[in-house]
């Protein structure tokens, strides 16, 4: 009874509080919308909020790492369900993605077993199809850095009996360079790259593949994407600031990346110049020392280089880059140089777009999947987001977030207080008029005991009656035993006491069903006749 009354009263209270909460939420959302003239104005409100959180997650300190993780998890879930007939990915499955440390060997290298490539591929697809990842560049957020998710190539046939690998370098800033540490079927990423996402030059690192396809999103550098075996490499704005001889992405050398031997280079941007050519990066000479990265870069058309350019990419200066005579190097390659201010679309092989803008460190979540957008549009959106993001940062996002959190916390506190207050009031009113549970049982039991003690034999018929009523209420149509007392005459036993067991398991329940049906009909019919009789009596008398 008490519970039912609570159920009746609570909705009214909830409605009132919901209205107040709605107004409060609306107010907080207004703060959000006003504070962030970012993109997505046509998106629903919740998308805007999520975008805000996404930007927060993308900020360098990753204040909302959890939110970012949840965001990615939800995307992963969508893709996972698409590939598993709607099956939910369990925690174990998900955690396996987060915990790459299990694949880090004693040699401090990460080896992803082939058995899990498929799952990692799906995850990588989810990432690639849905978003651009922006892990922290400085925080140790192992397991959240999307650069940790490595999808490797079942179909990767190394040109020279090798696999690409990510070798650990002594200098952390050089970690995750593609090197040439080949061994068997495993592809490696250094534990440094896997565990420590402070490698700024790989701010976002999402390698994935069907056919050796990788997608890198570099910190403060733009997008680099390169495929193996007949695919392409896009390296946009990576090697900017060549005049200083340093790559802006990590403050280190501009040879912060290197493709393994056999990678076809499709396009390249050097300080605003977009170079498009066919070519091959040669593997480094020393695959273990890590000191010779980028010292040799060969460009050719799937032909083992016989000539080298004299300058290592690391030492290519602005002048050298601008004066790079590609034609001299790429005898067999096709190339195109796009002047600054224009963007080359490799899909259509046309030059489109307006301005090649170095991309910022912070990028927000993408909303489209593969094939939904052209490369040029993709770049434009990235650039737009870059501008929007920088605008958002100017508005002091952190402060706004803390304000918003404060408002939400205040609303939550008010809500909790009102809820507890109303619950207490309802409980008090109910306790006034509704007896506590079990009260009547205790009361009748006390009354029964009292009369049994005081009335003695006079109360015996009532006890028998109560026993019969209890037998009626608690009967069970399963199995029971009939007792026939013995018959004695003087010292002679004429008939011993007998027990007859009746098995109710098979036929009797079926019989009982039809018997109940018949007797119920008779009883109901008799009751209706009684009602009719009383009705007539009431009318006539």
């Amino acid at each position: 009874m008490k519970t039912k009354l609570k159920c009746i009263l609570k909705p009214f209270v909830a409605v009132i509080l919901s209205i107040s909460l709605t107004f409060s939420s609306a107010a907080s959302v207004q703060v959000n919308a006003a504070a962030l003239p970012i993109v997505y104005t046509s998106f629903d409100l919740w998308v805007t909020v999520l975008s805000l959180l996404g930007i927060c997650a993308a900020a360098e300190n990753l204040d909302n790492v959890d939110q970012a993780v949840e965001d990615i998890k939800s995307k992963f879930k969508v893709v996972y369900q698409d590939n598993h007939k709607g099956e939910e990915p369990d925690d174990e499955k998900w955690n396996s993605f987060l915990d790459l440390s299990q694949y880090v060997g004693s040699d401090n290298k990460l080896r992803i077993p082939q058995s899990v490539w498929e799952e990692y591929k799906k995850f990588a697809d989810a990432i690639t199809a849905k978003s651009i990842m922006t892990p922290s560049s400085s925080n140790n957020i192992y397991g959240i850095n999307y650069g940790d998710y490595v999808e490797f190539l079942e179909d990767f046939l190394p040109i020279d009996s090798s696999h690409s690998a990510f070798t650990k370098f002594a200098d952390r800033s050089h970690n995750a360079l593609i090197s040439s540490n080949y061994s068997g079927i495993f592809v490696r990423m250094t534990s440094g790259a896997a565990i420590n996402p402070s490698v700024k030059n790989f701010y976002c690192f999402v390698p994935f593949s069907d056919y050796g396809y990788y997608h890198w999103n570099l910190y403060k550098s733009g997008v680099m994407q390169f495929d193996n075996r007949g695919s392409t490499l896009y390296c946009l704005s990576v090697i900017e600031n060549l005049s200083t001889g340093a790559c802006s992405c990590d403050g280190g050398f501009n040879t912060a990346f290197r493709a393994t031997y056999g990678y076809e280079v499709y396009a390249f941007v050097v300080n605003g110049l977009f170079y498009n050519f066919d070519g091959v990066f040669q593997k480094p000479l020393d695959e273990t020392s890590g000191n010779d990265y980028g010292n040799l870069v060969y460009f050719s058309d799937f032909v083992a280089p016989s000539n080298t350019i004299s300058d290592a990419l690391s030492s290519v200066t602005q002048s050298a880059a601008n004066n790079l005579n590609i034609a001299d190097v790429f005898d067999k390659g096709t190339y195109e140089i796009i002047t600054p201010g224009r963007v080359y679309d490799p899909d259509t092989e046309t030059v489109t777009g307006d301005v090649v803008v170095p991309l910022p460190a912070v990028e927000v979540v993408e909303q489209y999947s593969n094939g939904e957008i052209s490369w040029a549009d993709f770049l434009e959106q990235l650039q737009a987001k870059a501008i929007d993001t920088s605008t958002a940062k100017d508005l002091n996002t952190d402060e706004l977030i803390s304000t918003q959190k404060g408002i939400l916390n205040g609303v939550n506190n008010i809500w909790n207080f009102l809820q507890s207050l109303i619950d207490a009031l309802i409980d008090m009113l109910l306790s006034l008029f509704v007896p506590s549970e079990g009260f009547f049982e205790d009361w009748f039991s006390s009354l029964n005991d009292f009369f049994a003690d005081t009335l003695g034999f006079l109360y015996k018929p009532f006890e028998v009656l109560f026993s019969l009523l209890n037998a009626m209420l608690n009967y069970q149509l399963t199995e029971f035993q009939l007792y026939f007392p013995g018959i004695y005459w003087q010292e002679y036993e004429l008939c011993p006491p007998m027990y007859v067991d009746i098995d109710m398991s098979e036929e009797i329940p079926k019989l009982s069903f039809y018997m109940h049906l018949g007797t119920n009909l008779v009883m109901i019919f008799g009751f209706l006749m009684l009602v009719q009789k009383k009705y007539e009596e009431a009318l006539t008398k």
Partner: protein
Amino acid sequence: MIVEALFNLVLNLLEFVFGWVSLPDFPDSVNAVIDEFTVIVCDGISILAIFVDWNMVIILIPLVICVVEFHHIWQLVMFVLRKIPFLHIG
């Protein structure tokens, strides 16, 4: 709380009124026979459950009581209603 207090008051009142009464129980031999009889009847109720749906009986019993004693229930209700002045029930 109020309802509980009223019921407890009734119980205390009964205890106060009948507290001095202390009638003896049946002798044990008589009680034994009655108990044995009760057990047999209860077993009989279980046998009857094969033919009669006691759940239906339990539902119908209060309804039958209400219908049979409808006259008295009516009188009781009218007695209460007549106590309410503004209803003007004579």
